[in-house]
């Protein structure tokens, strides 16, 4: 049995308006009725939306600015936990990667160290570790850094900033989710369902490359486990579904979930040769080297690779158990989109 500690008096969440942030708030608001949630929003509009969810404190600010983190943590101490879920994955320029993912993380880690909070949970990514060298390879809990382009480098330097603060006394744990899916997704994610429905999801190569994914509620479970497990201090953990899926399996399962939710789904028809993935990856490198970012190129370039991670250490150390697998998670996700009035 993994030793867990009690809820903190204050739970601070950055990126609260984002996909993961909303899922966290949704879960923690009823669970932490004895404690307060303090949320970071970027704009007054976001602040109003968050305040409408319930009895929460909202701070408005830009995580890339050091004073924001200091204001956010003002007056807190060992009775507070910080969940740092703010990050940017599809920016306009590569500079934003570093402003938000690296500098923002350093700001929050330094503020957490200054205030002596109980624990910081930093939400990182698979991207600092790049891609697996072959489809059967799986990332273990400890791997060498091999960042994938600008996002990967910015998230790696974010991790390094956290480890640096840990070396100076901060209590922090890093969680690393791969590609996540589920309710609270931004509208851009509906493209994914539309491509599968129309049979045009671009399967690169033979489609046998594997991808770890994580249902957003599984990820919330993992983050809370990392927050509440004292022995997790100073470590990084993969938080993913039980196993990695092949791209073919992902497309087929999502197609089945859409069909079972009453959508008509065309059979997959878009197969791209592996070279298309390499060309896209090359294009992505060129565009990013010019300081710009193009989402389609990036996603297509990465689709060529296996990104698979092993959750054994997360199970053993955190007691993390993924409760939802791909089919069930996708059905819930589709229903959520429909309930939001999104067109799939």
């Amino acid at each position, binding site marked *: 049995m993994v030793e867990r500690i009690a809820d903190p008096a204050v739970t601070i969440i950055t990126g609260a308006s984002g996909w993961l942030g909303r899922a966290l708030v949704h879960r923690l608001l009823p669970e932490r009725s004895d404690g307060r949630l303090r949320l970071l929003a970027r704009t007054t509009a976001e602040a109003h939306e968050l305040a409408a969810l319930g009895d929460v404190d909202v701070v408005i600010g830009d995580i890339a600015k050091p004073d924001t983190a200091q204001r956010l943590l003002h007056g807190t101490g060992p009775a507070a936990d910080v969940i740092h879920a703010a990050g940017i994955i599809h920016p306009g320029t590569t500079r934003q990667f570093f402003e938000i993912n690296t500098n923002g993380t350093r700001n929050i880690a330094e503020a957490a160290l200054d205030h002596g909070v109980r624990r910081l949970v930093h939400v990182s990514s698979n991207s600092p570790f790049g891609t697996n*060298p*072959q489809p059967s*390879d799986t990332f273990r809990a*400890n*791997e*060498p*850094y*091999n960042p994938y382009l600008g996002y990967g480098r910015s998230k790696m330097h974010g991790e390094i900033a956290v480890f640096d603060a840990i070396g100076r006394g901060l209590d922090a744990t890093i969680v690393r989710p791969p590609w996540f899916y589920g309710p609270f997704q931004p509208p851009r994610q509906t493209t994914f369902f539309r491509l599968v429905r129309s049979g045009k999801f671009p399967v690169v190569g033979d489609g046998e490359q594997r991808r770890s994914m994580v249902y957003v509620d599984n990820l919330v479970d993992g983050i809370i486990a990392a927050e509440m497990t004292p022995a997790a201090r100073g470590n990084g953990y993969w938080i993913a579904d039980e196993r990695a899926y092949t791209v073919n399996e992902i497309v087929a399962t999502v197609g089945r979930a859409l069909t079972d939710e009453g959508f008509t789904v065309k059979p997959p028809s878009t197969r791209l040769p592996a070279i298309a993935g390499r060309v896209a990856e090359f294009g992505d490198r060129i565009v990013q080297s010019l300081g710009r970012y193009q989402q389609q190129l990036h996603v297509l370039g990465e689709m060529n690779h296996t990104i698979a991670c092993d959750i054994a250490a997360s199970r053993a150390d955190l007691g993390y158990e993924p409760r939802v697998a791909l089919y069930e998670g996708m059905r819930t996700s589709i229903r959520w989109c429909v309930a939001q009035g999104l067109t799939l």
Partner: protein
Amino acid sequence: MNATATTPGTVAMDAEVLIVGSGAGGATTAAVLAGAGFDVLIVEEGEWVEQGSVVPFSLEQMDRQYRAGGVTVALGLPSIAYTEGRCAGGGTEINSGLYRRPPDDVLQRWAANFRIADLDHDEVHSIANEVEQALSVSTVPGPPSAPSDVLRRGADGLGWQNSEIPRWMKYDHHDPAKGQRQSMTRTYLPQAVAAGARLVTGCRIDALEMGNGTARRATTTLADGRRGIITFRHVFVCGGAIQSPALLQRSRIPGHIGRSLAVHPTVKLAARFTDELNVPDDVPVHQVREFAPDLSFGGSASQPGLVALALSDQWATFGRSIVDWRRISVYYAAITSEGRGRVRAVRGLRDPIVTYGLTGRDRALLGSGLARLALLMLEAGADEVYPSFRGAPLVRKRADLAAMRSAFSVARASVMTVHLCSTVPMGEDTTKCGADSFGRVHGTANVWVNDASLLPTAPGVNPQGTVMALSIRNARRFASTEHSRG
């Protein structure tokens, strides 16, 4: 033990069974056949070097016991350096001595994919038991050496599976550092000679003279340059995965010969620790098998000259650390390769041309392997890690691994290999096998291959145990078939 070797006095020799080569394949074949009453002549190109007369892993050993002084290269991009033993006992005299049983899943895959008849797992394991007795396969009594403990400590810290690999060593229990290598010159060769086999060293077989699929005699060149002739009824070619196919090709034997060389390519790094740890005349016995069989890590010989060699790819910045060689040890990352090589005998050249091509997947795996190995070194407490490739950055902390990985390319690395095999694969599928299920070369009546050439693919583990088990199996089958013929 020199008494077992007779210098060639006569230029013409004959035997019922000629065995070409005296390594893991030839020595065991000789012991089985001489023991079964055959008149056996073993011919070895190299010399008999008494154990202890040269320092293990030294330059003198390379000169006396390795082919071409240890400098042989498979051409390709990149070229891959490899080593072959050329002495009585062959590779068993000079390798790391690590013993692995043939893995069951590998045997099963071989039998299915190459159509090997009667590859019985129980029989193979029973032979492996005998081999383990004969070679005193055992673990180190007492704690591992400091360079070996680095592998254990680093892997344990990362949660990676690792273990001590037993060796064919007799240990002095009062001084575990002093092991007596149970190579072929200590075991199967004396056993063969005691059963009546003759061993001739310093004699190279140039070609087999063939007629109607039958080899009639062998033409030879002696160490002093004289030519000779050996007549025989049967010939076993056991020269290793490079020399065996080359001899068959020089003898104009057609078929799938030399076309599918398989190796375990390796890349290296040197790691410097706070305390002295270098053990110049021995290699670490721990292996990290967390990512096996695709990727495995172990320790390399770390004589000062070999430490310098490991630093030499980036000598401008790493070279000055050589003064600290006592604090440095060398480690490797090995992969199972999806690439393939070729061995081609060329008229007028003494040694064949060897080529090897790595695949994109091989390259990615070598890069990932070197980075994971460097991470293990940091976990084990290394102060500095020196990856062996041109343009490599010095690695002192985890953040440096990103720079190392992005600077790495296989073309800049010193890729080398020791496990050469699969140039005359065994099995009934003649589209990809050079020899039948028991080593007889397809299309011949009396030419057998019985060495690492027969392994259908690289086995993913140190191969000597597999080579010995299969060669004993094949030699026994030959003996029983011949006896039943009367």
